Protein backbone atom coordinates (compact mmCIF):
# COMPACT_ATOMS: atom_id res chain seq x y z
CA UNK A 1 0.00 0.00 0.00
CA UNK A 2 1.24 3.46 -0.82
CA UNK A 3 0.00 6.43 1.19
CA UNK A 4 0.78 9.92 -0.08
CA UNK A 5 0.32 13.11 1.90
CA UNK A 6 -0.04 16.10 -0.41
CA UNK A 7 0.87 19.50 0.96
CA UNK A 8 3.21 22.37 0.31
CA UNK A 9 4.62 22.30 3.81
CA UNK A 10 1.97 23.90 6.00
CA UNK A 11 1.57 22.90 9.65
CA UNK A 12 -1.56 20.87 8.94
CA UNK A 13 0.30 18.82 6.32
CA UNK A 14 2.94 17.82 8.84
CA UNK A 15 0.27 16.79 11.36
CA UNK A 16 -1.53 14.73 8.72
CA UNK A 17 1.74 12.95 7.92
CA UNK A 18 2.23 12.15 11.61
CA UNK A 19 -1.36 10.94 11.93
CA UNK A 20 -0.96 8.71 8.88
CA UNK A 21 2.10 7.12 10.49
CA UNK A 22 0.11 6.49 13.67
CA UNK A 23 -2.80 5.06 11.68
CA UNK A 24 -0.54 2.60 9.86
CA UNK A 25 1.00 1.53 13.17
CA UNK A 26 -2.43 1.10 14.75
CA UNK A 27 -3.64 -1.02 11.87
CA UNK A 28 -0.45 -3.00 11.82
CA UNK A 29 -0.19 -3.00 8.06
CA UNK A 30 2.77 -2.58 5.80
CA UNK A 31 2.57 0.71 3.93
CA UNK A 32 4.89 3.20 2.36
CA UNK A 33 4.12 6.78 3.47
CA UNK A 34 5.37 9.55 1.22
CA UNK A 35 5.12 13.31 1.54
CA UNK A 36 4.46 15.06 -1.78
CA UNK A 37 5.49 18.70 -1.58
CA UNK A 38 5.99 19.61 -5.22
CA UNK A 39 3.08 21.77 -6.28
CA UNK A 40 3.09 20.50 -9.88
CA UNK A 41 2.80 16.92 -8.66
CA UNK A 42 0.01 17.90 -6.25
CA UNK A 43 -1.93 19.49 -9.11
CA UNK A 44 -1.84 16.19 -11.00
CA UNK A 45 -4.11 14.64 -8.36
CA UNK A 46 -6.82 17.22 -9.02
CA UNK A 47 -6.90 18.58 -5.47
CA UNK A 48 -7.35 22.29 -4.86
CA UNK A 49 -6.95 22.27 -1.10
CA UNK A 50 -4.28 20.79 1.09
CA UNK A 51 -3.46 18.69 3.05
CA UNK A 52 -4.77 15.78 1.01
CA UNK A 53 -4.58 12.05 1.63
CA UNK A 54 -3.95 9.75 -1.34
CA UNK A 55 -3.97 5.98 -1.04
CA UNK A 56 -2.74 3.90 -3.96
CA UNK A 57 -3.26 6.81 -6.31
CA UNK A 58 -6.81 7.57 -5.15
CA UNK A 59 -7.64 10.87 -3.38
CA UNK A 60 -9.50 9.99 -0.17
CA UNK A 61 -9.61 13.38 1.50
CA UNK A 62 -8.54 16.95 0.83
CA UNK A 63 -8.39 20.17 2.79
CA UNK A 64 -8.83 18.36 6.08
CA UNK A 65 -6.55 17.38 8.92
CA UNK A 66 -7.79 13.87 9.66
CA UNK A 67 -7.14 12.21 12.99
CA UNK A 68 -5.31 8.87 13.12
CA UNK A 69 -8.65 7.14 13.86
CA UNK A 70 -10.28 8.71 10.80
CA UNK A 71 -7.41 7.54 8.62
CA UNK A 72 -7.69 4.02 10.05
CA UNK A 73 -11.36 4.03 9.05
CA UNK A 74 -10.48 5.12 5.51
CA UNK A 75 -7.71 2.57 4.89
Amino acid at each position, binding site marked *: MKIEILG*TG*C*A*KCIFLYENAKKAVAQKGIFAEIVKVED*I*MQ*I*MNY*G*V*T*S*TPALVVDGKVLS*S*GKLLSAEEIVALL
Partner: protein
Amino acid sequence: MFEWWEQLSAVMVFDGLGLIKGSQLGEAVHFFIYDTLKIYMLLVAIIFIVSFLRTYFNTEKVRVYLQGKSELSGNVLAALFGIITPFCSCSAIPLFLGFMQARIPMGITFSFLISAPLNNEIAIAMLFGLFGWKVTAIYIGFGLLVAILGGFIIGKCKLEKYVLIPVTPMSGDLEDVEIRLHVTKRIKDAWVYTKDIFIKIYLYVLVGVGIGAFIHGYIPADFIARYAGGDAWYAVPLAVLLGIPMYSNAAGVMPLIEVLTSKGMLLGSALSFMMAVTALSLPEAMILKRILHVKLIGLFFGIVGFGILLVGYVFNAIL
Protein backbone atom coordinates in the same frame (compact mmCIF):
# COMPACT_ATOMS: atom_id res chain seq x y z
CA MET B 1 -32.59 38.18 21.58
CA PHE B 2 -30.28 38.55 24.58
CA GLU B 3 -32.47 40.59 26.94
CA TRP B 4 -32.71 37.63 29.30
CA TRP B 5 -28.96 37.48 29.50
CA GLU B 6 -28.62 41.24 30.00
CA GLN B 7 -30.97 41.00 32.99
CA LEU B 8 -29.39 37.86 34.39
CA SER B 9 -25.88 39.30 34.18
CA ALA B 10 -27.13 42.52 35.80
CA VAL B 11 -28.50 40.52 38.73
CA MET B 12 -25.17 38.67 38.99
CA VAL B 13 -23.06 41.84 38.97
CA PHE B 14 -25.21 44.27 40.98
CA ASP B 15 -26.86 41.90 43.45
CA GLY B 16 -24.41 39.01 43.49
CA LEU B 17 -21.14 40.98 43.54
CA GLY B 18 -22.70 43.98 45.26
CA LEU B 19 -21.40 46.52 42.76
CA ILE B 20 -23.36 49.76 42.49
CA LYS B 21 -25.56 50.23 39.44
CA GLY B 22 -24.49 53.32 37.51
CA SER B 23 -20.98 53.41 38.97
CA GLN B 24 -18.07 53.24 36.52
CA LEU B 25 -16.75 49.99 37.95
CA GLY B 26 -20.20 48.39 38.08
CA GLU B 27 -21.05 49.32 34.51
CA ALA B 28 -17.66 48.16 33.21
CA VAL B 29 -17.92 44.79 34.97
CA HIS B 30 -21.51 44.30 33.84
CA PHE B 31 -20.60 45.16 30.26
CA PHE B 32 -17.62 42.80 30.37
CA ILE B 33 -19.55 39.80 31.69
CA TYR B 34 -22.58 40.44 29.51
CA ASP B 35 -20.56 40.96 26.33
CA THR B 36 -18.02 38.15 26.68
CA LEU B 37 -20.58 35.44 27.35
CA LYS B 38 -22.97 36.74 24.70
CA ILE B 39 -20.19 36.65 22.13
CA TYR B 40 -19.05 33.21 23.26
CA MET B 41 -22.59 31.84 22.81
CA LEU B 42 -22.92 33.41 19.36
CA LEU B 43 -19.44 32.31 18.30
CA VAL B 44 -20.16 28.69 19.13
CA ALA B 45 -23.61 28.74 17.51
CA ILE B 46 -22.58 30.50 14.30
CA ILE B 47 -19.29 28.68 13.79
CA PHE B 48 -21.12 25.39 14.29
CA ILE B 49 -23.86 26.22 11.77
CA VAL B 50 -21.41 27.56 9.18
CA SER B 51 -19.02 24.63 9.50
CA PHE B 52 -21.92 22.16 9.30
CA LEU B 53 -23.12 23.75 6.03
CA ARG B 54 -19.56 23.72 4.79
CA THR B 55 -19.33 19.95 5.05
CA TYR B 56 -21.48 19.94 1.90
CA PHE B 57 -18.91 21.92 -0.09
CA ASN B 58 -15.23 21.87 -0.81
CA THR B 59 -12.99 23.75 -3.20
CA GLU B 60 -12.83 20.76 -5.59
CA LYS B 61 -16.61 20.97 -5.94
CA VAL B 62 -16.51 24.74 -6.45
CA ARG B 63 -13.99 24.22 -9.23
CA VAL B 64 -16.43 21.90 -11.01
CA TYR B 65 -19.26 24.43 -10.72
CA LEU B 66 -17.13 27.35 -11.90
CA GLN B 67 -15.66 25.58 -14.90
CA GLY B 68 -16.91 27.08 -18.15
CA LYS B 69 -18.74 29.96 -16.47
CA SER B 70 -18.48 33.27 -18.26
CA GLU B 71 -17.10 36.38 -16.59
CA LEU B 72 -19.40 38.36 -14.33
CA SER B 73 -21.79 35.45 -13.72
CA GLY B 74 -18.70 33.43 -12.79
CA ASN B 75 -17.49 36.27 -10.54
CA VAL B 76 -20.87 36.41 -8.79
CA LEU B 77 -20.94 32.64 -8.27
CA ALA B 78 -17.33 32.54 -7.06
CA ALA B 79 -17.99 35.30 -4.51
CA LEU B 80 -21.09 33.46 -3.24
CA PHE B 81 -19.18 30.16 -2.98
CA GLY B 82 -16.62 32.05 -0.90
CA ILE B 83 -19.18 32.25 1.91
CA ILE B 84 -20.02 28.55 2.17
CA THR B 85 -16.78 26.84 1.16
CA PRO B 86 -14.24 25.85 3.79
CA PHE B 87 -11.03 27.60 2.85
CA CYS B 88 -7.71 28.16 4.55
CA SER B 89 -5.27 30.65 3.08
CA CYS B 90 -2.60 27.94 3.30
CA SER B 91 -4.41 26.30 0.34
CA ALA B 92 -4.24 29.45 -1.78
CA ILE B 93 -1.59 28.03 -4.13
CA PRO B 94 -3.24 24.71 -5.09
CA LEU B 95 -6.54 26.56 -5.38
CA PHE B 96 -5.14 29.23 -7.67
CA LEU B 97 -3.27 26.80 -9.93
CA GLY B 98 -6.06 24.23 -9.85
CA PHE B 99 -8.59 26.79 -11.02
CA MET B 100 -6.24 27.87 -13.82
CA GLN B 101 -5.82 24.25 -14.81
CA ALA B 102 -9.61 24.01 -15.18
CA ARG B 103 -9.50 27.07 -17.48
CA ILE B 104 -11.37 29.23 -14.98
CA PRO B 105 -10.54 32.88 -15.78
CA MET B 106 -8.16 34.46 -13.26
CA GLY B 107 -10.62 37.21 -12.32
CA ILE B 108 -13.13 34.60 -11.17
CA THR B 109 -10.48 32.92 -9.01
CA PHE B 110 -9.71 36.27 -7.43
CA SER B 111 -13.40 36.84 -6.68
CA PHE B 112 -13.28 33.62 -4.67
CA LEU B 113 -9.96 34.53 -3.03
CA ILE B 114 -11.36 37.89 -1.90
CA SER B 115 -14.72 36.59 -0.72
CA ALA B 116 -13.56 33.51 1.20
CA PRO B 117 -11.45 35.21 3.91
CA LEU B 118 -13.81 38.21 4.03
CA ASN B 119 -16.73 35.96 4.88
CA ASN B 120 -14.90 33.81 7.41
CA GLU B 121 -17.02 32.35 10.18
CA ILE B 122 -15.21 34.15 13.00
CA ALA B 123 -15.71 37.59 11.46
CA ILE B 124 -19.38 36.90 10.77
CA ALA B 125 -20.03 35.56 14.28
CA MET B 126 -18.24 38.51 15.91
CA LEU B 127 -20.08 41.04 13.76
CA PHE B 128 -23.42 39.42 14.49
CA GLY B 129 -22.72 39.34 18.21
CA LEU B 130 -21.46 42.89 18.44
CA PHE B 131 -23.42 44.83 15.85
CA GLY B 132 -26.53 42.75 15.11
CA TRP B 133 -27.82 41.24 11.90
CA LYS B 134 -28.23 44.50 9.97
CA VAL B 135 -24.57 45.50 10.07
CA THR B 136 -23.62 41.86 9.40
CA ALA B 137 -25.84 41.84 6.30
CA ILE B 138 -24.35 45.15 5.12
CA TYR B 139 -20.84 43.77 5.69
CA ILE B 140 -21.56 40.57 3.73
CA GLY B 141 -23.42 42.43 0.96
CA PHE B 142 -20.71 45.01 0.37
CA GLY B 143 -18.02 42.39 0.89
CA LEU B 144 -19.57 40.40 -1.97
CA LEU B 145 -19.70 43.52 -4.11
CA VAL B 146 -15.99 44.20 -3.51
CA ALA B 147 -15.20 40.55 -4.32
CA ILE B 148 -17.29 40.50 -7.51
CA LEU B 149 -16.12 43.85 -8.90
CA GLY B 150 -12.54 43.44 -7.66
CA GLY B 151 -12.23 40.06 -9.36
CA PHE B 152 -13.92 41.37 -12.49
CA ILE B 153 -11.50 44.30 -12.79
CA ILE B 154 -8.46 42.09 -12.16
CA GLY B 155 -9.77 39.76 -14.87
CA LYS B 156 -10.07 42.65 -17.32
CA CYS B 157 -6.43 43.63 -16.76
CA LYS B 158 -5.25 40.39 -18.48
CA LEU B 159 -2.41 39.65 -16.12
CA GLU B 160 -2.01 35.91 -16.77
CA LYS B 161 1.63 36.56 -17.71
CA TYR B 162 2.36 37.38 -14.05
CA VAL B 163 1.69 33.83 -12.93
CA LEU B 164 5.19 32.50 -12.33
CA ILE B 165 4.43 28.78 -12.66
CA PRO B 166 3.45 27.40 -16.05
CA VAL B 167 0.08 25.67 -15.86
CA THR B 168 -1.12 23.39 -18.62
CA PRO B 169 -4.85 23.83 -19.03
CA MET B 170 -6.66 20.51 -18.91
CA SER B 171 -8.70 19.33 -21.85
CA GLY B 172 -12.29 18.29 -21.33
CA ASP B 173 -14.49 18.90 -18.30
CA LEU B 174 -14.12 17.91 -14.69
CA GLU B 175 -16.38 15.29 -13.20
CA ASP B 176 -18.56 16.26 -10.27
CA VAL B 177 -17.06 15.56 -6.89
CA GLU B 178 -19.24 13.69 -4.44
CA ILE B 179 -18.93 14.23 -0.72
CA ARG B 180 -20.45 11.17 0.88
CA LEU B 181 -20.81 11.66 4.61
CA HIS B 182 -23.49 10.67 7.06
CA VAL B 183 -25.27 13.54 8.82
CA THR B 184 -24.06 12.41 12.24
CA LYS B 185 -20.48 12.49 10.92
CA ARG B 186 -21.06 15.99 9.53
CA ILE B 187 -22.38 17.15 12.91
CA LYS B 188 -19.41 15.57 14.66
CA ASP B 189 -16.91 17.15 12.26
CA ALA B 190 -18.57 20.57 12.62
CA TRP B 191 -18.46 20.26 16.41
CA VAL B 192 -14.77 19.30 16.47
CA TYR B 193 -13.99 22.22 14.19
CA THR B 194 -16.04 24.63 16.32
CA LYS B 195 -14.17 23.50 19.44
CA ASP B 196 -10.78 23.95 17.75
CA ILE B 197 -11.61 27.49 16.61
CA PHE B 198 -13.10 28.44 19.95
CA ILE B 199 -10.01 27.32 21.86
CA LYS B 200 -7.87 29.33 19.45
CA ILE B 201 -9.74 32.62 19.84
CA TYR B 202 -11.50 32.76 23.21
CA LEU B 203 -8.60 34.56 24.89
CA TYR B 204 -8.46 37.22 22.18
CA VAL B 205 -12.18 37.82 22.64
CA LEU B 206 -11.71 38.10 26.40
CA VAL B 207 -8.88 40.63 26.09
CA GLY B 208 -10.71 42.58 23.35
CA VAL B 209 -13.91 42.83 25.35
CA GLY B 210 -11.92 43.62 28.49
CA ILE B 211 -10.28 46.64 26.90
CA GLY B 212 -13.65 47.52 25.36
CA ALA B 213 -15.29 47.39 28.78
CA PHE B 214 -12.64 49.71 30.17
CA ILE B 215 -13.24 52.23 27.38
CA HIS B 216 -16.97 51.79 27.82
CA GLY B 217 -16.83 52.61 31.52
CA TYR B 218 -13.97 55.08 31.83
CA ILE B 219 -13.28 57.02 28.65
CA PRO B 220 -15.77 59.73 27.72
CA ALA B 221 -17.37 59.68 24.28
CA ASP B 222 -16.16 63.08 23.09
CA PHE B 223 -12.55 62.02 23.69
CA ILE B 224 -12.92 59.14 21.23
CA ALA B 225 -14.97 61.12 18.77
CA ARG B 226 -12.22 63.72 18.71
CA TYR B 227 -9.27 61.34 18.29
CA ALA B 228 -10.43 58.04 16.81
CA GLY B 229 -13.25 58.77 14.49
CA GLY B 230 -15.53 61.57 13.63
CA ASP B 231 -15.79 62.62 10.05
CA ALA B 232 -12.17 63.52 9.39
CA TRP B 233 -11.30 62.63 5.77
CA TYR B 234 -8.36 60.49 6.82
CA ALA B 235 -10.41 58.29 9.18
CA VAL B 236 -11.21 55.68 6.49
CA PRO B 237 -7.73 55.25 4.92
CA LEU B 238 -6.26 55.16 8.41
CA ALA B 239 -8.75 52.44 9.36
CA VAL B 240 -7.79 50.39 6.28
CA LEU B 241 -4.04 50.73 6.93
CA LEU B 242 -4.44 49.77 10.58
CA GLY B 243 -6.57 46.79 9.59
CA ILE B 244 -4.01 45.10 7.31
CA PRO B 245 -1.65 43.73 10.00
CA MET B 246 -4.53 42.60 12.25
CA TYR B 247 -5.36 39.55 10.17
CA SER B 248 -5.19 36.83 12.79
CA ASN B 249 -6.78 38.92 15.50
CA ALA B 250 -10.23 39.65 14.08
CA ALA B 251 -11.75 38.15 17.22
CA GLY B 252 -9.86 40.45 19.55
CA VAL B 253 -10.05 43.62 17.49
CA MET B 254 -13.75 43.68 16.70
CA PRO B 255 -14.98 44.24 20.27
CA LEU B 256 -12.84 47.39 20.37
CA ILE B 257 -14.34 48.65 17.16
CA GLU B 258 -17.82 48.11 18.53
CA VAL B 259 -17.07 50.24 21.57
CA LEU B 260 -15.43 52.91 19.43
CA THR B 261 -18.53 53.10 17.19
CA SER B 262 -20.81 53.37 20.20
CA LYS B 263 -18.64 56.28 21.32
CA GLY B 264 -18.64 58.23 18.10
CA MET B 265 -16.53 56.44 15.48
CA LEU B 266 -18.49 56.39 12.21
CA LEU B 267 -19.84 53.06 11.02
CA GLY B 268 -18.26 53.42 7.55
CA SER B 269 -14.79 53.72 9.05
CA ALA B 270 -15.56 50.72 11.25
CA LEU B 271 -16.73 48.64 8.26
CA SER B 272 -13.62 49.57 6.28
CA PHE B 273 -11.45 48.56 9.18
CA MET B 274 -13.16 45.19 9.59
CA MET B 275 -12.97 44.44 5.87
CA ALA B 276 -9.29 45.36 5.81
CA VAL B 277 -8.69 43.03 8.76
CA THR B 278 -10.21 40.05 6.96
CA ALA B 279 -9.75 40.65 3.23
CA LEU B 280 -6.26 42.16 3.07
CA SER B 281 -4.40 39.25 4.57
CA LEU B 282 -0.63 39.56 4.63
CA PRO B 283 -0.04 35.83 5.23
CA GLU B 284 -2.08 35.01 2.13
CA ALA B 285 -0.13 37.55 0.10
CA MET B 286 3.14 35.99 1.28
CA ILE B 287 1.91 32.54 0.24
CA LEU B 288 0.75 33.76 -3.17
CA LYS B 289 4.11 35.47 -3.73
CA ARG B 290 5.57 32.04 -4.43
CA ILE B 291 3.52 31.71 -7.60
CA LEU B 292 2.48 35.26 -8.52
CA HIS B 293 4.55 38.26 -9.52
CA VAL B 294 4.66 41.03 -6.93
CA LYS B 295 2.96 43.36 -9.43
CA LEU B 296 -0.11 41.13 -9.56
CA ILE B 297 -0.32 40.86 -5.77
CA GLY B 298 0.13 44.62 -5.50
CA LEU B 299 -2.72 45.16 -7.91
CA PHE B 300 -4.88 42.66 -6.02
CA PHE B 301 -4.28 44.51 -2.73
CA GLY B 302 -4.68 47.89 -4.43
CA ILE B 303 -8.05 47.08 -5.99
CA VAL B 304 -9.48 45.42 -2.89
CA GLY B 305 -8.14 48.25 -0.69
CA PHE B 306 -9.70 50.84 -2.98
CA GLY B 307 -13.04 49.01 -2.89
CA ILE B 308 -12.96 48.91 0.89
CA LEU B 309 -12.14 52.62 1.01
CA LEU B 310 -15.15 53.37 -1.18
CA VAL B 311 -17.44 51.31 1.07
CA GLY B 312 -16.19 53.30 4.08
CA TYR B 313 -16.70 56.70 2.49
CA VAL B 314 -20.14 55.82 1.11
CA PHE B 315 -21.28 54.68 4.55
CA ASN B 316 -19.87 57.63 6.39
CA ALA B 317 -21.70 59.86 3.94
CA ILE B 318 -25.12 58.20 4.11
CA LEU B 319 -25.39 56.97 7.71
